[in-house]
């Protein structure tokens, strides 16, 4: 195994673990905001790991540049999308989950 393949494997595996933890968080967390917190953050990081991981196994320099660009654009776009969704929910009047909501019979 070449060194670049090792780097790629590590990065992709790390990305998978982070994505998995994000998905687990989406299922586990109590309300909309917390779930988006899990999904948004892990997605932003994991996609960077995936794309940077792939950079090491492509031969073509143009493809490498494109992969880095895609990672960069997603790094800006994904958190913005998360922010927009959260803001929309907030404006729509969705209240965040607190311990009181448990007593009050939930959201």
């Amino acid at each position, binding site marked *: 195994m070449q060194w670049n393949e090792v780097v790629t494997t590590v990065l992709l595996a790390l990305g998978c673990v982070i994505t998995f933890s994000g998905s687990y968080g989406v299922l586990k967390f109590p309300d909309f905001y917390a779930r988006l917190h899990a999904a948004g953050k892990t997605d932003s990081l994991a996609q960077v790991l995936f794309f940077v991981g792939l950079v090491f196994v492509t031969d073509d320099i143009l493809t490498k540049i494109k992969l880095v660009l895609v990672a960069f654009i997603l790094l800006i*776009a994904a958190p913005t999308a998360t*922010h927009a969704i959260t*803001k929309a929910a907030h404006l729509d009047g969705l209240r965040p989950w607190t311990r009181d909501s448990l007593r009050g019979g939930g959201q």
Partner: protein
Amino acid sequence: MTAVVLIDTLLLLLVTAAAIVIIEVRSLYASAILTGIYSLLMALVWVNMHSMDVAFTEAAVGGGISTILLIGTLVHVGRDEKPIKKRLHVPALLFTVLTGGALIYGTLDMPRFGDPAAPIHHYRVPEMMAQTVGFVMDLPGKQKAPEGFDRDAYRHYRGLDPERFGDVKIDTVPVDPTDTAWRERSPLRNHGLVLPPVLVEGHHPEGGGDHHLHPADDFNGHVPNSVTSLLAAYRGYDTMFETTVIFTAGVSLILLLRRPRREGYLQRGAVMSDQVILRVVSKLSIPFILIFGFYVITHGELGPGGGFQGGVALACAFILYALVFGRSALYRVVPPPVSDMLIGLGVLIYSGTGAVCMLLGGKFLDYSMLNPQSPGDGESLGMTLVEYGVGITVSMVMLTIFNQLAEERST
């Protein structure tokens, strides 16, 4: 089971699950988002089949803009499905079962997935594929065939059309679908090229983007992306009328939904421009989305992409602008009369290119007439023009649909 089949099976299972949930779910918002997910999954299936152009279209049109438009529609029709009594409708069930059964019966005759002996790999497609990677032969100003390339053997193998190449001796070589030794017979085998009954990796010559030319070519050898060659030249009429369908959709929507101009363009509801993050990020990204759209349209001739995908990307930039800064800001950039005119202009560019070809003495949409000295460059020019025509119409129609949906909301 190969990895491709395994991934395909997983993806198609997810697609089926998404389809079932779309039908079952009550919330129409969830339904609209799930249609986007459905399209993205289908795009992955296409990628898995190496059909990048289709995947690109599916992701841009299905996953991108139609989700936006569906959600725009929800503003009018409400968030939730009206509760209806679910009763068993026997004729409908019968009809569905019969249709489904007939479709399944039809698939029994289809070739296996990825079967190299499937008819699609032997009828017309190999010829098309070979054309775009063919060699320059005896035309001035073009790349020469490599040393030791046997032209006669190549002509023989390809079975050149006697109508167009009367001076070439014709002897068609039929391809036996069960024969896998076809590569051994190909005169191109020593040149790193194969005539692909199956898409083989690396069948493009090195540097792939070069303009290769040979006389048996429907496209004068110019267009490296065989999909664009097929869509814009070989099936040019088809694509032109697809554009016309989009044009008709845009015109119908204007006729049905647009209010009289004297009432003005209303703008109500929240404008997002006071949200700093959204404002900054969209201002940053809109120029790049526009550049990407133009790149996809222009590059459609050379790689995956084209007028439809690029046009949708352009429309997305405008829609993002309208969403963040309000529709009145968008109307200052693209006033409705301008977008209406551009809808027609795109179709005019497409059909006009065809008409110019006729005026220059060729057939309708025979792009090689545009540059008689170098037919390949003519093909290239023609296809780029047509792609721009498609791109302009598609982007402006999508923009108009969005505008009309938003306008209704304001009333």
